[in-house]
């Protein structure tokens, strides 16, 4: 299965551990990712807050480049996913916007007819590879490991754009379960907790840090009190917030969280018995804890 890959800026930088685990795991799952050549930043929240048409235009450049390859565009970043998908939907829904985007793209020697399908890599792994295949590939059942799935907000929201519950969409916007099933396929236990799609406040982290950290604190507290050994994420921004800022959260709120926050591809990698180094696990700010290691060794 071949896809056009849109990494986004984060996995090329602070989320390099996500990329490492994607590189390690996808070939084993039969997924081939071909990076979209010369892709540009999708713009996300920041750009949309400043200029609407320009924000859609830079995002549409990626969709136009991808359209030439006639394959789905796949991204590991929830923010990019939402922006690209929203651009597609608005392109279809607003004729006036479509016309102007067409003119803007033309100025850059490109055109777009609206046919690129946007997907998150979780969706590809859950639906195209499928649970059965993954369960069959598991070499090391992660028995006894309590994993809290953190979907974050943006991945599950595109529903409202009228995209409906087709196979392009991840899941239910309020109570998604695809990652839950994936966790169970690795033999681990999926922790039930209420914050799995609560926003972590990433877009405020630069500007209203205390508020963002409060949101992170609530998510960490909920996962911990429900017995999670670790949290699993699907977005570089969520991971950064919950992992790298965890010690700062502890300092600010007097908490003592010590919860590793790993990517779902790292979790799959562990179950497929890939070495920790290859999966980028050494780059976590909050290291794997002793109980977690013991469970992994015993598995």
């Amino acid at each position, binding site marked *: 299965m071949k896809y056009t890959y849109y990494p986004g*800026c*984060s996995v*090329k*930088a*602070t989320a*390099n*551990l996500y990329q490492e685990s994607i590189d390690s795991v996808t070939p084993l799952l039969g997924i081939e990712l071909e990076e979209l050549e*010369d892709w*540009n*930043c999708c*713009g996300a*929240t*920041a*750009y*949309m*807050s*400043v*200029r*609407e*048409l*320009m924000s*859609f*235009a*830079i995002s549409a*450049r990626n969709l136009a480049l991808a359209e030439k390859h006639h394959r789905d565009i796949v991204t590991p970043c929830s923010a990019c996913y*939402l922006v690209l998908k929203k651009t597609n939907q*608005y392109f279809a829904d607003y004729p*006036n*916007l479509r016309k*102007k985007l067409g*003119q*803007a793209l033309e*100025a*850059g020697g*490109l055109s777009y007819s609206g046919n690129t399908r946007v997907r998150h890599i979780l969706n590809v792994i859950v639906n195209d590879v499928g649970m059965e295949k993954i369960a069959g590939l598991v070499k090391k059942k992660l028995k006894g490991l309590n994993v809290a799935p953190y979907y974050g*907000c*943006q991945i599950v*929201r595109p*529903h*409202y754009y009228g995209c409906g519950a087709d196979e392009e969409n991840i899941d239910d*916007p*309020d109570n998604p379960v695809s990652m839950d099933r994936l966790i169970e396929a690795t033999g681990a236990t999926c922790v039930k907790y209420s914050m799995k*799609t*609560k*926003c972590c*406040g*990433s*877009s*405020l982290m*630069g*500007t*209203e840090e205390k*508020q963002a950290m409060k*949101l992170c604190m609530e998510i960490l507290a909920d996962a911990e009190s429900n017995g999670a050994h670790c949290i699993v994420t699907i977005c570089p921004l969520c991971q950064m917030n919950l992992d*790298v*800022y965890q010690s*700062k959260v502890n300092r600010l709120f007097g908490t003592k969280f010590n919860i590793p926050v790993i990517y779902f591809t790292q979790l799959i990698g562990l179950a497929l018995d890939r070495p920790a180094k290859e999966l980028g696990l*050494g*780059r976590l*700010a909050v290291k794997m804890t002793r109980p977690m290691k013991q469970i992994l060794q015993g598995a």
Partner: protein
Amino acid sequence: MNTHKLKQKAIDKDFLDEIAHLPGGERIIDCFQCGTCSGSCPTAHVMDHTPRRLFAMVKAGFREDVLNSNTYWYCTSCYICTVRCPRQIKITDVMYALKRIALKERYVRRKNAAGAFYSSFVDIVERDGRSFEPELMVRFMLKTDPTLLLKNAVLGLKLMKHGRLPIRRNRIKARNELRAIIRKAKSESL
């Protein structure tokens, strides 16, 4: 949330129209004040006016009070309100629109950190086609509060220790084409 008194003297009858003409804002007239948005919003507790109240103010023409409030700056773009709104109002898009109007008309009620952050981001993306986190953060801190540079040094060092701090800017090849697209889009507006 609080019980802020509204300060504006004359109401602005065109405000509702202004918002309703933006992509995503067209259904705002349908808001029936159920409060689902406010109840779902992760940051409603720090907003001057909750989203529900803000929409009542938009409909009543309190343009100044709406733009002077911190409400839309605290919007994290999590979209949960939009998913849940029984009237299918694209609330998040309205919040974006308010940010854009405020930046354009220079509503800088308090030290506008978000505005500085967004414009630093946009500058870098327009120059390189990609974002570059270290530069973004440094620029932002210089614009707002340079002491943040020191306060956040630890975070930077931590990332560096784990080999997660990018050191080289990442530029796309077709920068001229991207700029042409941006220029064209800039010359038009919705």
